[in-house]
């Protein structure tokens, strides 16, 4: 296992400690609940936006806490939903008179934990609600499963809700924004390699030297099919097709395109994908008015990428443009 780790069982608290040390003015860290909350705490005049999920998707979740984004977040073990108490304590630490919106990526473990935590918080008089994000087009919804997965589109939900909340919008309004973003965002990913959770020590799945998994989930869940690796343009065209047809997006739409790296893919390769996606979007008549190329929702060191398209309107564009400050930063 080629990783920078000490005791694998302590991997999550150790990296959270590092994030907190690196952001002393921005964040407070509560090790007991693997929870990070804005240093300034919740503001009773503003809705709090919280999230939490398994680790291994960074910068998603705790690295998205800060002004303009999340109020607080908690982490589970790598790829495992956080403990119920972590979720409950995060809601409590972010409790605000204006209410708390819990943004949950749609996975069964996460949903159950946040369901319980939200029920407990509501029972204590906290005005908390949940919203489920499910932008992944790879897996079809089904009566028998918990439904579509929440993946990189999550970033846009957090960003827009965070901006709306900080602008003083009400809980109903912020929830309506979450719904608007979720209704207008679609994603599909492809994995070229597997990845190794530190505590497991072995790859989460096996994949041949010349194979890729199209439609992979962010925990290595199988997608639509396993096939021979293709050129960047062919892969991009396949992702684009799947994503674009789902809502569907229409000619004339103003859109944001995100090319998200799954962790082990260099940014240059993401730009090769972006170039093709941009061309296809223009060919389809979309106006590409925003773009996001980099790592937003990862699977540890997995080589791979996902393509997200978000349909915009004046409201969402303004929310995307609002300033935000998180542990994920360059300067």
């Amino acid at each position: 296992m080629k990783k920078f780790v000490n005791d694998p069982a302590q991997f999550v608290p150790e990296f959270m400690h590092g994030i907190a040390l690196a952001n002393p003015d921005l964040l407070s860290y509560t090790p007991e609940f693997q929870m990070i909350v804005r240093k300034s705490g919740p503001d009773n005049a503003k809705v709090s936006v919280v999230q939490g999920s398994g680790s291994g998707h960074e910068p998603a979740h705790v690295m998205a806490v800060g002004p303009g984004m999340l109020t607080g977040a908690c982490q589970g073990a790598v790829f495992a939903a956080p403990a119920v108490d972590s979720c409950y304590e995060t809601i409590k630490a972010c409790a605000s008179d204006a209410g708390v919106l819990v943004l949950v990526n749609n996975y069964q473990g996460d949903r159950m934990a946040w369901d319980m935590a939200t029920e407990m918080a509501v029972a204590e008089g906290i005005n908390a609600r949940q919203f489920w994000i499910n932008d992944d087009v790879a897996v079809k919804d089904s009566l028998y499963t918990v439904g579509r997965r929440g993946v990189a589109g999550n970033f846009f939900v957090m960003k827009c809700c965070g901006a709306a909340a900080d602008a003083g919008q009400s809980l109903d309004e912020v929830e309506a924004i979450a719904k608007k973003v979720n209704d207008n965002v679609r994603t599909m990913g492809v994995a070229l390699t597997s990845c190794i959770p530190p505590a497991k020590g072995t790859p989460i799945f096996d994949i041949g030297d010349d194979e890729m998994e199209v439609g992979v989930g962010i925990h290595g869940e199988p997608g639509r099919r396993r096939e021979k690796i293709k050129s960047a343009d062919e892969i991009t065209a396949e992702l684009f097709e799947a994503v674009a047809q789902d809502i569907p997006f229409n000619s004339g739409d103003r859109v944001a395109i995100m090319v998200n790296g799954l962790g082990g893919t260099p940014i240059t390769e993401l730009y090769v994908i972006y170039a093709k996606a941009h061309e296809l979007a223009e060919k389809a008549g979309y106006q590409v008015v925003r773009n996001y190329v980099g790592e937003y929702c990862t699977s540890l060191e997995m080589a791979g990428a996902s393509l997200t398209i978000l349909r915009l309107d004046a409201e969402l564009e303004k929310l995307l443009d609002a300033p935000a400050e998180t542990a994920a930063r360059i300067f």
Partner: protein
Amino acid sequence: MAEISQADIERAIKTTCATVLRNEHYFADLDGLAGDGDFGTSLATGFRQIEKEWDEIPKTDIGAMLLKISMIVSKHVGGSSGPIWGTGFMKAAMLTRGKSEIALQDLAQMLGSAIEGIQARGGAQLGDKTLLDALIPVHEKLTAQAAGGDKAAALKDAAEAADNAVDETRHLVAHRGRASQVGERSANTPDPGIVAIATILQDWCKDCGVERTPTAPEVVKATA
């Protein structure tokens, strides 16, 4: 004689701790076949903590004890197992508030209430290939034996029902939890939650001197 004392419940919990900790890696490996391989660790984290806090867990009555256990699980267990087992213990606790002795019938009701809670929490039905596929037949057996009041017979029947569930559900496709995300690929692998329930009941048999030989190969292995 058909009464189950606070001490009986305590012993059952301690036995369960041993079962879960002994099988930490084995249960994880089973989850790795179709799921994400964290089941063994998640469960062990919770029961290790129960052992650690054992002396502080209130022994005033069965309900207080189970409530505290539910809280430990909620605090320390992640993944789907946290809410599932936490809910189960919570529901059982609510029926035993203030009691330090219960009848077999009460035990059956506690399990029924836990099953209802788990179903409400995770939406799984019989046949979705989750630990409910073990708990539901176990509940039937306990209910059937409740009138007779023979604890040993009830336990033996229960263990047998869970043991059978391992083999009877092996061919199914999982519809809940991480294993559901691999679709067809989950068929022909045992569900680790069902194996865990069957193993725990088998260990309880041994502990109570109830003679029974496990049949499902995974339970044979986990109790060896």
